[in-house]
């Protein structure tokens, strides 16, 4: 016989549950009687405790009696489910082999979707170029403004600081061999061929690629992309082609700007720290850097820009239905783009070395 006092509410439920369980476990107890005559209010947690105790007693082959129930107690206890519902078990997690197979199939379908997207982008872009279809009014200018103009400052600052840092580092090393004058060669060649395209691409990935993926992903979640499809408007032409077109222009342009600003930063340090007049610096550059170097750097930026644009569009469009997957798409865009950019950069370096035009 257990006498209940006071309210059976969330604040007291932990103690009540503990005490009652101890009582029910005792071997000498066969029948537990809960007397509610002194009990006050009962809330959901109180009902849950009574329900749990009832189940525990039933399992042990013991009996539960309730006495002194007021009307509100009866009404509340009536809320207990009469029969035990079957909990629907989700499918068990796949084993190692199944998981591997799933990953392969997933990768395959991802690759197919990526190729289909690239084909669609090419088709739609051609249709736009040949004037058979139009881009949405003002979309291209808007995209160029958001991607390019607002990125000018940060790309410029980054290149300038990198140029300066390289000049300082290079000056110290080269002076030990009495070759301080070659700092101009070093900075200009590495800026034009390597650093500016790479750093600009990394900045564009973080700024623009992530934004594209998040934007498209959110549109997917809000069914806006489905809305376009049902209107008979091709989402690739409407959403992706303007972004790819803008990034095609913006990527090389920002990178070109980065090259000159980076060289400018180096020139400043060479002047200040090495007493190398800018005119001499410039002379060395014009002797050393060829149009082919610029073509190499700008061409690379173009490829990087496409990698970023296509990766972000692909992952954004494949977003699932919840908030988590938008975050995933954004993260993966940044990671995959940067990885792909560095791999492609290595390929560029290998090819150019083999062709001996470096």
């Amino acid at each position, binding site marked *: 016989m257990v006498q209940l006092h006071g309210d059976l*509410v*969330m604040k007291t*439920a*932990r103690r009540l*549950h*503990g005490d009652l369980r101890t009582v029910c476990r005792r071997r000498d107890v066969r029948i537990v009687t809960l007397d509610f005559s002194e009990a006050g209010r009962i*809330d*959901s*947690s109180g*009902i*849950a*405790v009574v*329900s*749990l105790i009832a189940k525990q007693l039933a399992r042990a082959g013991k009996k539960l009696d309730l006495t002194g129930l007021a009307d509100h107690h009866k*009404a*509340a206890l*009536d*809320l*207990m*489910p009469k029969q035990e*519902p*079957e*909990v*629907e*078990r*989700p499918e068990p997690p796949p084993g190692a082999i199944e998981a591997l197979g799933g990953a392969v199939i997933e990768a395959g379908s991802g690759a197919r979707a990526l190729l289909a997207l690239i084909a669609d982008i090419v088709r739609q872009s051609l249709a736009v170029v040949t004037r058979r279809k139009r881009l949405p009014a003002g979309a291209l200018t808007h995209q160029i403004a958001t991607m390019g103009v607002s990125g000018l400052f940060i790309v410029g600052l980054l290149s300038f600081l990198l140029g300066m840092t390289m000049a300082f580092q290079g000056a110290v090393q080269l002076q030990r061999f009495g070759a301080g004058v070659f700092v101009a060669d070093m900075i200009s060649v590495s800026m034009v061929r390597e650093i500016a395209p790479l750093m600009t691409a990394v900045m564009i990935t973080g700024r623009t690629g992530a934004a594209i993926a998040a934007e498209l992903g959110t549109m997917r979640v809000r069914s806006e992309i489905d809305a376009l499809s049902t209107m008979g408007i091709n989402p690739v032409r409407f959403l992706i082609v303007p972004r790819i077109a803008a990034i095609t222009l913006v990527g090389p342009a920002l990178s070109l700007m980065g090259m000159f600003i980076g060289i400018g930063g180096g020139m400043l340090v060479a002047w200040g720290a090495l007493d190398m007049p800018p005119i001499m610096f410039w002379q060395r550059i014009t002797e050393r850097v060829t149009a082919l170097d610029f073509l190499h750097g700008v061409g690379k930026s173009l490829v990087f820009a496409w990698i970023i644009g296509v990766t972000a569009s692909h992952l954004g469009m494949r977003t*699932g*239905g*919840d*908030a*988590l997957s938008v975050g995933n798409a954004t993260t993966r865009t940044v990671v995959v783009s940067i990885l792909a950019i560095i791999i492609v950069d290595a390929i560029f370096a290998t090819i150019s070395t083999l062709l001996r035009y470096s």
Partner: protein
Amino acid sequence: MSTPLIECRGVSVGYDEKPVLENVDFVIEQGEIVTLLGGSGCGKSTMLRSLTGLLPPLAGEMLVLGKPLYDLSLEERNELLKKTGTAFQQDALFGSMSVADNVALPLRELTSLPEAVIKEMVRMRLFMVGLPGSEKKLPTSMSGGQRKRAALARASILDPVIMFCDEPSAGLDPAVAATIDDTLNHFRDALNITIVVVTHELESIRAISDRVIMFGRGSVMARGTVDELMASKDPEIFNFFHRVAERPDDTGALEQLTR
């Protein structure tokens, strides 16, 4: 008579200093289901946002459970809000958690109940809203009606004194809408929860409302029982309850053009 649970006196609500509703007075008593209704854009959802602590009113006095909601310190306000539950129009379930984890979240975060009791409470609450056995499901794998019911389970799991529901049965088939209405009535009768509902589903309004507060023309347009409002001769109220289409008066347009 006990003090009312919600009391609004001369309240204005709106965004950016532009009031949508002005000079609103009403009280909500313990144990009733009150429906806030009105045409689209009349400000009823804005009012609800204000009552749930998301949007300070522009003017007037708003007492929730006898306390001035927006004059309290952040801690006091959170204490007060723990005694209320809100079910949003979009279910607002966390997509990365199972239904059981969604419903158990307030219990795990705000109480010190043992896990066994929490599980049992979640099981009982899901049974109450008509989703027995769906503990392990993810919200994305459920239908709209099931998600709304799971949201009701989460909003009510702490046995709140007041529950706010924004369009609980909008966009659902009549049978599922009836289940939700039933659940709300059940919450009021069995758990003694006072419920404030925003809706414009006529069937639901009839099925659940003890009292109706109708917004329109920038303030409270009418209040009373459903029957009283149905009998109203006011053209706007009549049109609302008898589904009369409203169109701008276009008679004589041709005449005007050719005049």
